Every structure is written in C-alpha cells, then in structure tokens.
C-alpha cells in the first residue's frame, strides 16, 4: 500500500546506508515499542542531512508521540512535516497531520506549514513561494526543499499541459530570467522537453508527452469489453 520509503522527487534519494537499514529493520520488528523512539528521532535528523526519506519510520515515530505526548519534540515533528511536504504529490503531509494532536497543530510554526501544504495541494504556486519566502527560517532547515517543490510543480504541470507558456512555468517553479533558461535547457538536453516560439506571446514549453496530457496516448478502455468477460459466456455458447 502506498509508497512507504519511496521517493517521488529526485532530491530525496533512498540511500542504503548501514544506519537506515538498521532503523528500517527496527521499525519492522518493533512497530509498537517505545524504546526505539530516540533512534527514530535521530533517524529524522539523518534524513534531513542526507536528503533521504522514510515515511514508515516517520509515521512510526508520530505514533509513539501520539501514545506518549510528553515525549514529543516539536522540532522533530516540524522536520517530519517539511519532509512530508517534499514528498508531494503523495498525501504524506495529511497522513502525518492525522496523528498530530490539534493543540500542537495550533502552534505558529505548524500553522505556517499547513498553509504551505494547502497552497501546494491547490496548485497555487505563486502564493506558495511568497509564503515560503516569508518562512525561510522554517523551511531552510531542510536541504533540498526548493528543488523538491519544483519537482512537484513540474509533475503537476506535466499532468495538465501539453504545451505550457513560459510565464506559467516560471511562476510555478519560482525561477525567472537566466536561471529559468538554464532550468529549461537542462530539461531540453535531457531530451524530454522542447521549446517552441509562438508568434505573439513568447516561448511555449512542450512538456514530455504522457497519457494524461496528450490525446493519442490515452488508453481507450471505455466501453470495451475485456476478454475475460467475454470468456464468461463461452461455456454457455458452447
């Protein structure tokens, strides 16, 4: 189920280091053991510094906090939430919130993160980047944050657009001018993007085609009868 330990963004690589291996094992063997709480807290910090990610370990820690609210560290919870934001489009952020008591969520820092998540969930990227700029002190604590959100933005754009105006892309990833040229060049050289000049409005970026943003690639499953279903009537016909 789901994507535990998975990384949807290229910036959160799963490193098979000795440390992560033992913690994952620890969680698998002792999912309900309060003794592993300090290990899990250390592991959150390691995920931050090594840019790795493990949803199942973090959920396990939040569960232990839920059982023993006195041991909760807001700093750790905040880091878990930022990591969960970076895992967008996966619903990890909500999964974490479900386990965090409401009175904790009322703290300023968490309120900010909830607003950030709301902007990402509703694809309001310009508002997101404005808010993130105001909350540098929170999100800068986790390396790779910006790149992860940009990867999510590109994901949503490529689900939606076949050809996207440069300005829309710029707003979504919060990059302009030369840096944007670089960003686009990088993707063009990776050969899945292409640039097109439209007559009146400037550049259009052609995003990689997939079955969600292109007509022909859409599998037409609608109202076709699968063979297994037809096979059901063979015995009667025969």
């Amino acid at each position, binding site marked *: 189920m789901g994507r535990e*330990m998975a990384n949807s963004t290229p910036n959160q690589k799963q490193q098979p280091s000795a440390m992560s291996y033992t913690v994952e094992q620890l969680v698998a063997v002792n999912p309900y053991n309060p003794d592993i709480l300090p290990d899990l807290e250390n592991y959150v910090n390691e995920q931050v510094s090594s840019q790795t990610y493990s949803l199942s370990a973090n959920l396990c820690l939040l569960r232990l906090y*839920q059982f023993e609210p006195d041991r909760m560290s807001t700093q750790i919870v905040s880091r878990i939430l930022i990591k969960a934001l970076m895992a967008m489009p996966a619903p990890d952020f909500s999964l974490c919130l*479900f*386990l965090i008591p409401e009175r904790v969520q009322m703290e300023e820092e968490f309120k900010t993160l909830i607003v950030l998540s709301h902007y990402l969930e*509703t694809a309001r990227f310009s508002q997101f980047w404005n808010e993130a700029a105001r909350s540098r002190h929170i999100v800068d604590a986790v390396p790779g944050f910006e790149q992860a959100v940009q990867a999510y933005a590109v994901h949503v754009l490529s689900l*939606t657009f076949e050809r996207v105006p440069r300005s829309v892309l710029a707003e979504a990833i919060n990059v302009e001018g030369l840096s944007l040229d670089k960003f686009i060049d990088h993707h063009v050289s990776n050969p899945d993007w292409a640039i097109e000049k439209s007559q009146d409005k400037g550049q259009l970026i052609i995003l990689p085609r997939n079955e969600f943003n292109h007509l022909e690639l859409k599998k037409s499953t609608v109202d076709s009868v699968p063979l297994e279903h037809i096979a059901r009537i063979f015995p009667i016909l025969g």
Partner: protein
Amino acid sequence: MAGTASFDYGSQQQKPEAESAAAGYDPNYVPDSVRSFVVHIYRHIREKNVYEIHQMYETSFQSISDRFFKDSPWPSVDAVAPYVDNDHVFCLLYREMWFRHLYARHSPTLKQRIDSWDNYCSLFQVVLHGVVNMQLPNQWLWDMVDEFVYQFQSFCQYRAKMKSKTEQEIALLRQYDQAWNVYGVLNFLQALVEKSTIIQILEQEKEGLVQFTATDGYDYNGGSNVLKVLGYFSMIGLLRVHCLLGDYHTGLKCLLPIDISQQGVYFSVIGSHITTIYHYGFASLMLRRYVDSIREFNKILLYIFKTKQYHQKSPQYEQILKKNEQMYALLAISLSLCPQVMLVEETVNSQLREKYGDKMLRMQRCDDEGFALFDELFSYACPKFITPSAPSYEEPLVNYNQDAYRLQLKLFLYEVKQQQLLSGVRTFLKVYSTISLGKLATYMEVDEPTLRTILMTYKHKTHAVDSDGKITSNADVNFYIDDDMIRVVEFKPAKRYGDYFLRQIVKVCLEFNIFLISICIMHMFIFSFLSRHCSAARRGYVGC
C-alpha cells in the same frame, strides 16, 4: 451473542455504572440450563465437534441469555468451573463470553473493565504459548478479536470522560495503568499475527504448499485452528485499531497479506467481512483513493443486499444494518468527491439514490449547505476515534473523548474544501470538447490564473503516484491544456453497455435458447460500434 456491542459506534450515552449490579443477582446460582450448556459445549470442545460448538455458541448462548440473563450477568466462572473439570482454558473462554455479555447488555464498571483485560491477557498468553489444541468456530474466534478491540475502544472513550470520574476511579486508573494500555493491545494483536505465522501461511498457500483458505482456516488433520485463525483475524483487528488512531496508512499495511479482491477466510464470518471492508474503504477514503473505496463499498453493499435475509435471525442483524447504512453514507461521500457512478452496480446505485440522492445533489454545490452535509455524513459514518494516551491526572480534569474525532473531521473537511471548486469544472468539461481558458474562466466567474490552479488541482487530486513512480488516474473527466486551449479527451458514458449486455446474455441463455444469443451479441457489437461513433461525432460538433 457474538460481539453484539462491537459495531456500536454511534451511541454515546452510558448507563450509570451501578445498574449492572442488578438487585438479586447471585453469581453463584447456576440454573439447570446453564449447567447443561457448559457441560455440553465443554464436551463438544473436547471432542472437536465444531458444528455442535457453533450451534451452541450461536443459538443456545443467545437464547439462554434472553431467558435468564436479560438484566443480570451470567453465573460467575467459579460457580460453573466444577461442571467442566475446572478446565483452565475453558474457564478463560467462559469468562471472555461472560464479559462480552456484560458489555453488550450492561455498563461495565471500571473494575470489570480491568478484570476483562486481565482475562484477555491470560487467554491470549495461553494461545500464544501454543498449549491450545481445540478447534473453535471462526465466528467465535472472530468475536474474540472483535470484542477485544471494541473493549479497548470503549475503555479509551470511558477514560477520556474525566469530568465525571470519582476519586476512587481515578485512583484505580492510576493503579492499573497497564490495563488496556495501547502498547499492550497492539502488541497482543501483533504477537498473534507473528506467532501464528499466518502471513507466511498465506504466502505458501499462493504456491499451493498449504491449505488455509480452502478449509476456511480449519484443520482437518487433528491440529488446532485457534492460533492460526486468531492471527488471521488479528490483522483485521490491527487495521481497525490503526483506523481508530487515524493511522490509515499503517492500517492498510497491516491488511496487505489478505487479498481482499479474493474471497478469503474474512468472508466466512459476516462481521469480519463487514469490519474489513468498512475500515478498508474508510482508510482509502481518507487517503484520497476514492476509486478503491467506491469499488469495495459497492461490492459489499451488493453482497449485503443479496444475503441480508439470511441474517435476519442473527444476533448481529442490527449491527449489519447499521454498518450497511454507514457504508452507504461513505459511498455517497466518495462519489461526491469522485463521481464515477459507473463503478457502482445498479441495485446499489438505486438504493443509494433512495437514501442519499437528494443530499448528494446538494453536496455537489460548494456552498455552506453542501459543506455541512459532508460534515453530517462523515460524523454519522466514521469510526469511533480514540485518544490512546492516558490523561494527565494533575491538571484540571477535562473531557477529551471528542478530541480525536474532531481532528479527523476537521482534516477531512479541509480536503473537501480543497476540492470544492472541482465539481464546477467537471460540469463544464463534460459539455465541451475544446474550450479556451479565457472563455471557461468567464463562465466560472474566475480569472485565468485561478482557473489554471483549479485545473491543476483537479489533476493533482485525481492522480496518485505509487512507489514505483507509476501514475494512476482516478479522473472521471480527462483533459489537457495546450497553451490556452483546454481539450477534453473523452467523456465516459454513464453506463457500461458491454457489461450490461454480457449480463443480459447470460440471463437470456439460461432461460431461452441459442438463437436469441446470437441476436444479443449482434446488438452488443452494433451498439458499441454506434456509441463509439456517436461520441466521436459529438466531439466534432459540440466544440467551439
């Protein structure tokens, strides 16, 4: 009896504690029918006569309870022990039923709750140490796990109502802080899963090495089914506990070894079947996997519709009906967020329209009223969430039994809010095959940048990415934007004609003759040919 109380999430009120000590109850008095009951069921257990055990468990226990113990508990275990050779395991089983009857018909006192916990500890320890060689009916084993989780949930609710606690009760709570401790509960369930090696058994069964599902978990070679089947049901117990805690991801992970697309042992007891699908569907709903929840709710609601009549005399009948209603409410929610009606079978759909048709129309509107309806249906149909931690006894005593529920409700409504503009977009996209962003923005009375965010939100909310980076679409309308033009790819027809025709063919074949079949098949192909061409034609002229 069979875990009658365990589905009861709805009722909030509790009878005063004193009532359970009904006047005139003599725990040492054993009526003849009780003596005969324990003597016989004990003998059947020793002889491994599962059929007779099941009969007595399902029928006799119920009828004796109705006749003699409507207002009082059953005789104490000490009073019946002499009739069953003071058998240790049987006495544990008897006490388990004794408490279950008490919970179902009376309000347990704190002392009784603690005693019941102790009894579960002894019982599960005996099972875990493998000294049990009995063969018990699945119904009974399911009821044990179900009741265990129910009593845990009930205890958490009880403890959270701190305002009305007496000093004596608080002293007891502090003294017995291990009773119904969340670690204890989870670890017992986990231990049963591990010790039974049920996960490996299910794996081996796929390779044809062992039989489990085929024999409904029973062992016909003289072994015991108790640990294995308890382990199996404990996976469902874990799913439920995790849902009660709001940990949906972990809950579904606990259920993974059971393939719910197939009939498994969970199917053999209606209560376990319903509990499994109800929690699976609810967790999927909270994880935004609406198609999964719609599909499974549809299947079980159809199943209940078809088999309801066979359960009319069952002690669980009322609970079946209640869960049935709750699952219709959850289906209404899922379909309002993800209008894929073609996943729902006709019978279920017409029941749904009857119950929630009007409300579902209003839920489509993104006004306060629609919002209030999501609130209403969620509150009616959600599990009874719990706060697992003990209260702080030093601070002023406050009730916190609603905290967990309020949090889940709030977060769910948050999600609804994020999706509230999507139903408007759907309506338009179903009518057009191409439309410019500017024009649609005017129709929807928003500006273009806002419209873009709404369309991207639609895409994000209807597409899930799994661990391999594979994208699955739950979208009911497919479209993409090319610069500033929206192109709608295909509008799915409301009905699955292929499926419909195939079912008609099967029906007809069984009643008439081969001649008619060929006509049906011809119709089917002509129709699907026509419908495909019609939709192509529609795309041609509806565009702007």
